[in-house]
């Protein structure tokens, strides 16, 4: 295992310190926690947006903390949901009196811990609402679907909605509408290694790839021979579009997300074919994002996310953001 780390037990704590040290003009670390929060939190009378989850998906989620997106992000151990007490601290610091929306990726651990934190927050008189992101079409059973890169669009749109002065319920509704309209699918060429375990998360043959893999290495749809960039793009798109059923003429946001060690060059090859296919299907591309948004340590692979837009979501997507990993 070749990693640039110190003692693996301290990795998350040190990473959070590193993030806070990098962007002091935007964010700070809540003392004695692994919570990154806007340096001006809480913003009075604005609905707070809190997300988080296991670490190893950077820039998710701390990179999305900043004016226009999240008010706070909680970092759990690598690939392990954060505990309720940490989440509670994030909720408290994010609450400016208008309540807090929790953006939760749909994993048992995340759901359980965020729900407990929400109960604790309610007990302290803070109103919370939640949205559970489950954009990964690789899982057939919809309630069990995992949350992957589509989560970033939820952060962006919920954050922008909160900035309009909307109520907690309105922000939650906007976030839920993103979830209803967003679909993703990923694929991997190589596994990744959790620092504390030192072992690969799964194994793939020299010439194999796995379609539909999860961002913690959860099993996907199919393992098969490594295909070309065009074929990979085509397969991901077919499965996403089959599930999404976007009417032709729909206006979309597109995200081509790198899982970790796949060079940006390769992401652009995938993007090239994705854009061709969208044109063929007469789907309009409103905006494209190519880069590492929701990673899986040093896993090689990518995911494709499509979000159907309406006028409101276009406006919210375009709204400014000062989050270090999503400046616009």
């Amino acid at each position, binding site marked *: 295992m070749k990693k640039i780390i110190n003692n693996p*037990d301290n990795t998350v704590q040190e990473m959070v310190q590193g993030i806070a040290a990098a962007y002091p003009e935007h964010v700070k670390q809540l003392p004695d926690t692994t919570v990154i929060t806007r340096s001006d939190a809480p913003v009075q009378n604005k609905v707070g947006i809190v997300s988080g989850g*296991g670490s190893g998906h950077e820039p998710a989620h701390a990179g999305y903390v900043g004016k226009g997106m999240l008010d706070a992000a909680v970092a*759990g*151990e*690598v*690939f*392990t*949901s*954060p*505990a*309720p*007490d*940490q989440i509670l601290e994030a909720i408290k610091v994010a609450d400016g009196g208008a309540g807090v929306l929790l953006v939760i990726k749909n*994993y*048992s*651990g995340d759901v*359980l*811990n965020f*729900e*407990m934190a929400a109960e604790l927050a309610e007990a302290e008189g803070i109103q919370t609402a939640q949205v559970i992101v489950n954009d990964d079409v690789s*899982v057939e059973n919809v309630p*069990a679907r*995992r949350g992957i890169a589509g989560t970033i669009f939820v952060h962006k749109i919920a954050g922008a909605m909160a900035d309009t002065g909307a109520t907690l319920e309105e922000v939650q509704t906007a976030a839920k509408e993103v979830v209803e309209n967003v679909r993703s699918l990923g694929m991997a060429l190589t596994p990744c290694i*959790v620092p*504390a*375990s030192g*072992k690969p*998360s799964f194994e793939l043959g020299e010439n194999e790839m796995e379609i539909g893999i*999860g961002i*913690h*290495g*959860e*099993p996907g749809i199919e393992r098969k021979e490594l295909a070309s960039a065009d074929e990979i793009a085509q397969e991901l798109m077919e499965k996403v579009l089959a599930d999404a059923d976007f009417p032709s003429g729909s206006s979309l946001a597109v995200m081509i997300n790198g899982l970790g060690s796949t060079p940006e060059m390769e992401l652009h090859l995938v993007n090239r074919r994705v854009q061709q296919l969208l044109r063929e299907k007469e789907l309009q591309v409103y905006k494209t994002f190519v880069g590492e948004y929701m990673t899986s340590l040093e896993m090689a692979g990518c995911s494709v996310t499509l979000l159907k837009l309406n006028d409101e979501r276009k406006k919210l997507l375009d709204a400014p953001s000062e989050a270090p990993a999503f400046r616009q």
Partner: protein
Amino acid sequence: MELNAAAIKQWMHHTNETIQENKEYLTDLDQKIGDGDHGINMARGFQAVADKLNEQDYDTVSDVLKDTAMTLMSKVGGASGPLFGTAFLRFSTAVKGQETINATDFAKGIREAAQGIMDRGKVQPEEKTLVDVWLPTAQYLEDASEFDAEAMKQTAKEAMEKTKDMVAAKGRAAYFKEKSAGHIDPGAASSYYLFAALAEILGEEG
């Protein structure tokens, strides 16, 4: 059977030792049908419990259980953190204020704990989770005419082994669908260690 705060403390310390020894094994189980962190999570959590309990002397069983619950809740993370945390919290509440607990109290505590896991995890029996160890153990404790540590350990062990053939319906293992069969559930294994540790403590005392 009569357990005081010190005995519960001892139980938790021995659980910690067992978990540390089996950290790799638990992680390997989770590698097969999960994300390979269960041993790491539990080892981190129970080490924190051991450290926490060392900080003070406790008057009541319920206080030891409560600190155990809160520490697990805050240090384990993942799915197992809130589940083990909830289990011990319910146990603590079931024996609230008691300086000592007897076999009946213990049975009641474990029953409440099992129910807590089911509520929190929205989980049913036979879904291949830790509840498949807690429930049969609770049942055994309620049914036993007399508390028998070895028999409890055996019950927990068999229950854990039964999870091997189950197909997971909750947690990460559910993504493996039919392929989850053939492997022991990691949470069930760590739950077994918990009950085994108690049996070993009581066994030593004779």
